């Protein structure tokens, strides 16, 4: 349970003069929900992109389940168990919710050089996709085009798509961004049902979400992790409060 599933060592990436990731070390244990917080522009999405394989680091290594995955592409990491949700909603807008999730199931059900059978009618793709939509509360909306879903529903669809790849590690980039209070509560409640079952790296600005979900928190400021610890430790950390949290957690 406590051996690190993900091990990041010395991860460094710059964009011109901007050091977006500065020698980041991070360990995420199997089954934990590990939040990464930090002010805007701290490099959180850059970190997620490097973990997901969308962006190559300049230096440093990423190890996953004992394997060095630093050089692997995003699809290759997905096949090893990475799943990513995007900060800016990224769904197939002209496909239905069900088709969105079915595609994710299909991506992990062997090769897709199959040319004859209609994919939409395959029970092997439909049933798992339907079950996951039910799980995230979109069961009744499965035949709606993703473009016509409400913002909160699209966010939930992203999580459903990630789950459909049966991931070992979920990289969730601000899953409650732009959501209303009620939607946020629902999403937090759902994500808490994943706790312990899935290993999650959660990037989030919403402190309610962070403090109610995270087992541990790492604080990223100007590309550096300035502290890692339990929510209590982070709350108590003077440097963190100065750099980022401000009054928000004093209440």
């Amino acid at each position: 349970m406590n051996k690190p599933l993900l091990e990041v060592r010395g991860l460094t990436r710059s964009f011109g003069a901007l050091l977006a990731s500065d020698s980041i070390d991070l360990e995420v244990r199997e089954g934990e929900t590990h939040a990464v917080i930090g002010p805007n522009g701290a490099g959180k999405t850059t970190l997620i992109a490097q973990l997901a394989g969308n962006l190559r680091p300049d230096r440093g290594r990423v190890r996953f389940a004992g394997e060095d995955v630093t050089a692997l592409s995003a699809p290759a990491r997905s096949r090893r168990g990475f799943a990513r949700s995007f900060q800016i909603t990224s769904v197939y807008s002209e496909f239905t919710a069900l088709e969105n999730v079915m595609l994710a199931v299909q991506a992990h059900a062997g090769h897709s050089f199959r040319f004859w059978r209609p994919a939409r009618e395959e029970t092997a793709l439909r049933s798992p996709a339907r079950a996951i939509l039910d799980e995230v509360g979109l069961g009744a909306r499965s035949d709606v085009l993703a473009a016509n879903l409400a913002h909160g529903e699209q966010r939930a669809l992203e999580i459903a798509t990630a789950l459909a790849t049966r991931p070992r590690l979920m990289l969730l980039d601000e899953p409650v961004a732009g959501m209303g209070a009620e939607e946020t509560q629902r999403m937090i409640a759902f994500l808490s049902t994943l706790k312990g079952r899935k290993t999650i790296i959660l990037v989030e600005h919403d402190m309610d979400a962070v403090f109610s979900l995270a087992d541990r928190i790492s604080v990223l400021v100007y590309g550096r992790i300035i502290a890692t610890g339990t929510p209590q430790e982070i709350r108590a950390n003077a440097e963190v409060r100065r750099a980022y949290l401000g009054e928000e957690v004093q209440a």
Partner: protein
Amino acid sequence: MNRRTAILLAGFLLLAVVPPLAALLGQPFYVDLLRRVMIFAIAALSLNLILGYGGMVSFGHAAYLGVGAYAVGVLAHYGVHNGYLQWALAIAASALVALVIGAVSIRTSGIYFIMITLAFTQMLYYLGISIEEFGGDDGMRLAVKSQFPGLIDLNDGNAFYYLVLAILVLVALLGHRLVNSRFGMVIRAAKSNEARTRAIGFSPYPYRLAAFVIAGAVCGLAGALLVNHTAYLTPEFMNWTRSGELMFMVILGGMATTAGPVLGALALLLVEDVLSGWTQHWQIILGPLLVLSVLFFRRGLAGLLFGKDE
């Protein structure tokens, strides 16, 4: 059967009654015209697979028309008239050329993809012009049409017409199956949202390349049909304006639909035919017509006919 399938079937039935109707009206010219339309419809359907469904804006699809036509023409030039051999070579050679062009161009996207596919096709065009043995820019006549002893005689205009119709129906049917299969879903997904597609674990490249090769092979077959239809071939088959026409057929007819490319080929070639009967400068009229149609029929002629898409 839904409305869409019914209309499609009715359309193919209409095409099937053209030869007797033309004979009845004493207008055999229409058999010729519609055979040409159907050959271009096959080419447009193949382009639609990568352009409409795959989002790959290939501006060089005429290359495969040319390769298919030259495969037949060159074999005939050296005295090989066996149709099976000629058409098999047309398909294989187009697939191979598509494999090479696709392997390079699919690594790029956007404007680069358009320019690379165009550049490759222009290379083939100039290659055709430079080979004196095959007539250079004059091209060459196909004195003897592809021979299918015991099966069909392509000199029989009606028989040839029905063969083209059968191939068109087959290509439309296979294409329809393909775009709804797992394979089809991957190339459509990659068009819709590439980042999402990679994130869920698909590497789009091999799927796109396979689609590109399939499209090239089918268009090569259309080329083999076209050279038999016109009984001559020239490098003009591969001219970039021809690639543009194919794109227009797809866009005008309605991208990512089965009926669209057929309707597009029909509309473009019929309008071309009518206008060129009126005036030598028919392109001056055709141009604005195309612009207007793209502006007002955003979803193409198929969108008009079928209403809301699937």
